[in-house]
């Protein structure tokens, strides 16, 4: 079964150090990304979703450190421990962009406004492939055409400000897909876009997954997106994966109180006013003053004394795992 795993993360801990204080942004996270499958990571702002992505890409800021755990990339030429590679060393630069690519949330800040779209797509092709300049240009145009951008021959020489939001995001995807990566990490790729444009981007990502057998890790806060795209889901809260499993496990029979509360708090289209949406009481705690035990306990309706110690991860079925001391009481 190991053969279809593209990347595995084990007990990863990433801490940030500022003003003599330590923010345990990721506090022991484990998951696998499989080839041709989509893993969705959901959670509210500040739960560590994006930090997980930048840890894998080795794009962390200087004041942070991978404290413990491992990130193993299962390449065809053998396993590579990404966490042990030198920061910005030759090896990680070879992998980054070519084998593991990333789509960022905000295409306006992720694209450089003073270079043309074409130049920015060609850049990674120049670095990672042996193609001639002419072939590279042709490839960039083909990529834009695949992404459904009209008149790619003309558009390739335009600057980011001449593109609309949806087109910029598609150009970002073209850039990420230029070297046919094995793993695609998409950090909220559609949050800034309208639903109609979002639908176009999702169609595109599904096509890429089917054609190139790419493993996708999609970071989102929208449960609707999860239902739509995911094969597997991991729900994060305050730096921990509190519940993970197949999309059926998590959405049909959520066991963790946080997942249930999250699903109860969103209005579902087509159910009108009769549906009762329940807000989660309180707000996410200060990351510097985390609760001692389960970090969701102060907001949880089912919290008991046992929640004062950090619960262990527990498998309730082969694919479905959960971090909650008394999940049995919840269902």
């Amino acid at each position, binding site marked *: 079964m190991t053969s279809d795993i593209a990347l595995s993360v084990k007990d990863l801990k990433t801490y940030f150090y500022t003003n003599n204080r330590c923010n345990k942004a990721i506090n022991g996270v484990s998951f696998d990304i499989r080839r041709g499958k989509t893993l969705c990571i959901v959670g*509210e*702002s500040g739960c560590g979703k994006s930090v997980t992505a930048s840890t894998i890409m080795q794009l962390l800021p200087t004041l942070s450190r991978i404290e413990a755990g491992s990130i193993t990339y299962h390449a065809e030429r053998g396993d590579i421990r990404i966490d042990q590679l030198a920061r910005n060393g030759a090896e990680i630069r070879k992998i980054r962009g070519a084998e593991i690519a990333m789509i960022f949330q905000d295409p306006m800040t992720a694209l450089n406004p003073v270079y043309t779209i074409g130049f920015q797509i060609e850049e990674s092709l120049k670095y990672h492939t042996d193609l001639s300049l002419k072939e590279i240009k042709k490839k960039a145009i083909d990529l834009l055409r695949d992404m*459904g951008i*009209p008149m790619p021959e003309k558009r390739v020489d335009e600057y980011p400000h001449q593109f*609309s*939001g*949806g*087109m910029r995001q598609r150009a970002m995807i073209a850039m990420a897909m230029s070297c046919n990566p094995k793993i695609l990490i998409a950090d909220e790729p559609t949050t800034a876009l*309208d*639903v*109609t*444009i*979002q*639908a*176009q981007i*999702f*169609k595109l990502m599904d096509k890429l997954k089917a054609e190139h057998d790419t493993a996708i890790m999609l970071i989102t*806060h*929208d*449960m*609707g*997106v*999860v*239902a*739509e*795209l995911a094969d597997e889901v991991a729900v994060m809260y305050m730096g921990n994966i509190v519940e993970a499993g197949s*999309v*059926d496990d998590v*959405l*049909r029979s959520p066991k963790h109180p946080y997942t249930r*509360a*999250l*699903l109860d*708090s*969103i*209005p*579902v*289209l*087509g*159910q*009108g*006013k009769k*549906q009762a*949406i*329940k*807000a*989660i009481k309180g*707000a*996410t705690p200060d990351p510097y003053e985390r609760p001692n035990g389960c970090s969701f306990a102060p907001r949880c309706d089912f919290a008991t004394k046992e929640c004062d110690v950090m619960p262990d991860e527990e498998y309730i079925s082969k694919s479905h795992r959960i971090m909650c001391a008394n999940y049995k009481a919840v269902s």
Partner: protein
Amino acid sequence: MTVQKTILEIRDLELHFPVRQGVFKKVRGHVKAVDGINLDILKGEILGLVGESGCGKTTLGKSILQLIRPTNGNVIYNAKDETVDLCALSDAEMSAHRKNLQIVFQDPHSSLNPAFTIYGSLQDPLKKYGVKSAKERRRIIGDLLEAVNLRRDYMDRYPHEFSGGQRQRIGIARALLVDPELIVCDEAVSALDVSIQAQVLQLLLDLRAKRDLTYIFITHDLSVTEYICDRIAVMYLGKIVELADAEDLYKNTLHPYTEALLSAIPVADLDRKSNRIVLEGDVPSPMNPPTGCPFHPRCHKAIAKCKTHIPEFKISVNNDDVNHYAACHLLDET
């Protein structure tokens, strides 16, 4: 149901921004941000205004409140004791009515002054509308903070000490200070996390019941509108293309744009695999809109007539529900 009083009558409202180019700043065209809107807002209702970015929903909200003066049309406001056309008022005359018409802005981070305490920001409207004593102002602000589920002593804190959800609630408290009749909520919950969003939505509904408010709820999120709104108006390129009771709009969608918009929303329900209509392309430039129906280049049902004739916005003919309006040629075809 009793006949509701109409609080605002919007008639042929237009807001065209001139586009100036060249050395002499010659007017080269207009961006028709709001283009001939007719709308009645009933007392006590929540009217949803939805559409993609750039369709003019925020501009419409602001031009109703005269924060941007419309270039043409009327906004008739039926106040408690008089009826006025807001568009005909001077700024000074308008300020008397602002007490009754308030707005909650989208971004709670940029709509509170970071250099003032909450009390400092919130006391201004009270001063303006005649609450002289500071003690009285503190009492009113304190009561309101409690009404939006915040602590009374929060008024001496600065905006950076609050989370996004708390700041949005402060924004709502500020709108409520002068006891308004109508509040325009411009994407009031869009910047919030889902768990906090539910808290704010609940608060808005509670406040409506307690204070007899009317909301114009501007958003791009159709699942939120369905939950909170009584009637929904769908906008596309400065025009309203469909207007109906919330439930009716979802059950009995008439306009192809609304249909596509609804089908594009991902639903957190595994049993409902949607037959998605994926719209091609982007919203056209409002400076140079397509001829005929503005939606026809992206429409999956467009017919020849759509390219040449602008469809009329009228009560839909093929069902008995008199409250369902739409602008589409296909409705005449059957």
